[in-house]
């Protein structure tokens, strides 16, 4: 179950940047072609965040649709996980989006 490894990396990176400051919101970007399930990430986050600066944080995950450019005609077209071909019939394509797996930003709690 790779979401656990992925979330462990998220917590490590975010904790390092937080340097002890409590995090209020953590935003991730996950491509729909990345082979990572947002629901499973939420599940792992609940376990792994305990005892870290992310303990109180809200986890937001934005999903990014797959997008490809046709190698034959240059048109851009949607690429679902199961694959797709350009309307021109070519199977040659280059992926432009959908494989992202990123921490976008951290928002810290207001300091009193």
């Amino acid at each position: 179950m790779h979401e656990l490894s992925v979330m462990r990396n998220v917590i490590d990176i975010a904790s390092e940047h937080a340097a002890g400051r409590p995090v209020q919101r953590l935003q991730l970007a996950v491509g729909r072609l990345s082979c990572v399930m947002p629901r499973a990430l939420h599940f792992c986050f609940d376990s792994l965040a305990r005892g870290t600066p992310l303990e109180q944080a809200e986890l937001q995950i934005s999903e990014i649709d797959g997008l490809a450019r046709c190698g034959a005609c240059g048109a851009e077209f949607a690429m679902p996980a199961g694959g797709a071909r350009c309307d021109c019939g070519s199977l040659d394509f280059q992926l432009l989006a959908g494989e992202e797996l990123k921490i976008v930003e951290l928002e810290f709690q207001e300091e009193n």
Partner: protein
Amino acid sequence: MCTTCGCSDQSRLTVTRMHAPGAAHDHGQHHHHPRDAQTLRLEQDILGKNDAIAARNRDDFSARQVLALNLLSAPGSGKTSLLERTLREIELPAAVIEGDQHSLNDARRIRATGAPVVQLNTGAGCHLEADMLAHGVAELQPAAGSLLFIENVGNLVCPALFDLGEAAKVVILSVTEGEDKPLKYPHMFRAANLLLINKIDLLPYLDFDIEACVAAARQVNPQLSVLQLSARSGEGLAAWYAWLRAQHAELAKAVASDQRGAA
């Protein structure tokens, strides 16, 4: 631990971390965002650390003049049988890193071929990561000019995500599996450089449509090379060995040009 496939990863995840103090809480409740809260924009790759170690492995393989191949498949596709026969017949120096959750069984089978082998047991982990491989390579010390076969944990999902620093990913699918597997596990087939369709000696007894399988694989990865073979009957193995020799020749050429550059 996860509800998705029921496995957990105890190889690096410490129990203290999983059970660190802190009351259970509902993340859905924290929607209060004060206007002056500070936002830190990161845009950082989550697997950057693995990727950095994989890049180091790649440099290490290059320095060692070793061609690393990541072998991936579902359990039961015949990976180890194919590897045993390949090691006996390829007539090139080769070493093996075996990845399995438990047992030394596969490493014992490989050792019987005479090839140097190290077994990595991932415990409950469902894939190899770059740092595990680095430890395996340090233990194995593969000879210069050799092929290094990395037999990943049998799994068509998780290993697709973790670069190990290999020169190529080889995915193995047997004809006793569904021909639509490339569409069911598109990430793995998209990440692969070569697809080996194994156990073709069984085709007369099965309804497996090999053309449909190749079409499905090319739908998710138009650049994918495909070879059909049987590790049991030997049919098609010559083309696999030719592919390996061509990769090995590329390595030798790169080494020669490095040496000329250094001279």
